[in-house]
């Protein structure tokens, strides 16, 4: 019975090409968008690469400095003085690293100009983030203290400037400074907010020393917790730190606001523009995103229900015929549900393949350097399940309604 219903479903779908196309397009398009958006979000929330330990990390990317009374407000990335004197000394995190924001600088080789991403970092950076070294080692605390002109470069930079041989011991000139290459790492995806760069050098090699006194600007920090359960304690300690800042100008009456965030909290902070709050709630953001996804799913599902309803009304006569020849309500409901399931399964396959092709295209493009996007099976499965539920419901209700129709009326096409 079920095999036969599948066979009939395929025949009906093949014959009703327009209906089949509309239904398949609606469902597979919804799945494609859902899976692609989820894959893009996922790679920022769970970045992988050197940031694979991100679930244990809190980031400090933004803070707000206000003068007393709020006459002047500076909002942006924190400064080195604030991070090194107040954040780096925090006790509750396992490790804390300070590093500069990603800067694009130009390197000249002969007449050719290359733009590369540069970061200044401390030595702990290499302990907090999980870089894969192809050759050499990272710079250490000694290099940092001595302001050694050493650099770690990525594979692409190595291949561009030094070819296929070893780059260790070679030098690279950046912005008038010469650095010795001591390590080469695998390329880092651009979606790694804290790790992405082409060249990494020690912070003290910065030519301009103004950063040493800056409370705001140019730097970020990552706080690695022993476990996620330490997050509340770290957040509390950071809040306490903000109350006891040693300001360069003791008469300035400044205050520092903001918080340390998980990637999702960073999103929520931006989404709701809550730059000054110590803590942001991700619940509302999750609810808003879930609701948006649900509405997005609901629209094609309602459309499918509508199509199903009108389609099944067109088939009232068929229901009458089947009832006349011995079909009971269960047979009819089963047949229409299987038709919907077959349709959804085909749409699911198209949706998954479509999402895969789009994500592969994004990966191949230079939109996000070195990043690899792949479909998230959990999102795909959840989306498919939702569509399946909506699709089944949209098929069951009309089928159940029609299956109960008086056979004589059904034979007349649902007209009395």
């Amino acid at each position, binding site marked *: 019975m079920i095999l*036969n219903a599948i066979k009939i479903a395929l025949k009906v779908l093949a*014959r*009703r090409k327009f209906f089949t196309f509309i239904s398949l397009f609606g469902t597979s398009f919804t799945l494609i968008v859902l899976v692609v958006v989820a894959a893009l979000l996922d790679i920022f929330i769970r970045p992988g690469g050197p940031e694979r330990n991100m679930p244990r990390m809190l980031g400090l990317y933004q803070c707000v400095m206000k003068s007393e009374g709020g006459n002047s407000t500076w909002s942006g990335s924190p400064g080195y003085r604030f991070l090194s004197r107040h954040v780096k000394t925090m006790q509750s995190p396992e490790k804390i690293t300070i590093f500069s924001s990603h800067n694009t600088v130009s390197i000249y080789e002969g007449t050719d100009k290359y733009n590369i991403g540069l970061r200044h970092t401390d030595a702990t950076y290499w302990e907090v983030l999980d870089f894969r070294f192809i050759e050499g080692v990272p710079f250490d605390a000694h290099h940092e203290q001595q302001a050694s002109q050493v650099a770690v470069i990525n594979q692409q930079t190595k291949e561009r400037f030094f070819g296929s041989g070893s780059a260790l011991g070679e030098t690279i000139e950046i912005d008038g400074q010469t650095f010795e290459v001591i390590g080469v790492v695998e390329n880092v995806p651009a979606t790694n907010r804290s790790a992405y760069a082409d060249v990494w050098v020690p912070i003290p090699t910065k030519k301009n020393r103004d950063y040493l006194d800056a409370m705001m600007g140019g730097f970020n920090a990552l706080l690695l917790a022993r476990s996620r359960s330490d997050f509340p304690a770290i957040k509390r300690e950071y809040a306490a730190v903000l109350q006891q800042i040693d300001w360069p100008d003791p008469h300035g009456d400044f205050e520092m606001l903001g918080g340390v965030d998980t990637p999702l909290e960073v999103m929520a902070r931006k989404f709701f523009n809550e730059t000054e709050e110590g803590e942001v709630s991700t619940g509302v953001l999750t609810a808003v995103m879930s609701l948006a996804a649900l509405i997005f799913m609901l629209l094609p599902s309602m459309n499918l229900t509508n199509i199903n309803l009108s389609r099944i009304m067109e088939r009232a006569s068929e229901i009458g015929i*089947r009832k006349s020849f*011995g079909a*009971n*309500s269960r047979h009819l409901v089963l047949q229409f549900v299987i038709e919907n399931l077959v349709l959804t399964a085909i749409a699911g396959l198209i949706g998954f393949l479509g999402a895969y092709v789009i994500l592969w295209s994004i990966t191949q493009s230079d939109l996000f350097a070195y990043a690899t996007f792949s479909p998230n099976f959990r999102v795909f499965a959840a989306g498919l399940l939702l569509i399946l539920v909506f699709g089944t419901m949209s098929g069951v209700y009309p089928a159940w309604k029609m299956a109960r129709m008086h056979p004589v009326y059904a034979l007349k096409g649902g007209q009395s």
Partner: protein
Amino acid sequence: MIQLEQVGKVYRTEKIETLALADVNISIPQGAFVSIMGPSGCGKSTLLNMMGLLDQPSDGEVRISGQNMSHMGDGDLARFRNQHIGFVFQSFHLIPDLKVIDNVEIPLLYRSLTHKERTRLAHAALDRVGLSSRVDHFPSQLSGGQQQRVAIARAIVGEPSYILADEPTGNLDSQMGDQVMGILEGLNEERQATIVMVTHDEEMAKRSHRIIRLFDGRQVDA
């Protein structure tokens, strides 16, 4: 045997009551070929629907093969129709999305048969009505006469004891109508199938064993 005792049917809406049948007593023995005649709206199709268990009487009882059908549930009625009754409709009622062979197989889908067995029986039924060469056609690719022959193949594929035909020649020209009548007569003679046929055509009716006449929902001649 089909027996109708004191059968009446009233269609009720909020505003009006329509008497479709009243006090109908009919007994059709096994193997009979009976025609039902009467003017439009006199209750012929309603009567046929009662016999085919597609509709329930408001009064009286319908007995088929000795069983009182009044107390059967929908599931049992569906099973009985599937096992014992075959329908032929004026407008053929073939499913346009399905090929001829799949249309003919429909009654067998609701029996415990293998695909191979269903196909064998459907081919045999189509052979019986002379349409073996049209198994893979869709209904829209056939003439009216051919479509009605497919409908007859569908009605007989399950070898039912009763074939109920509602104006089976009504949409056909005289030559095709004659062909369809020939098939029905053959089924009646060779397989002893009981055939009840609603018709407007006096000539067709005369070819049956007996004519039941209705007027305004009442039996006027049996």
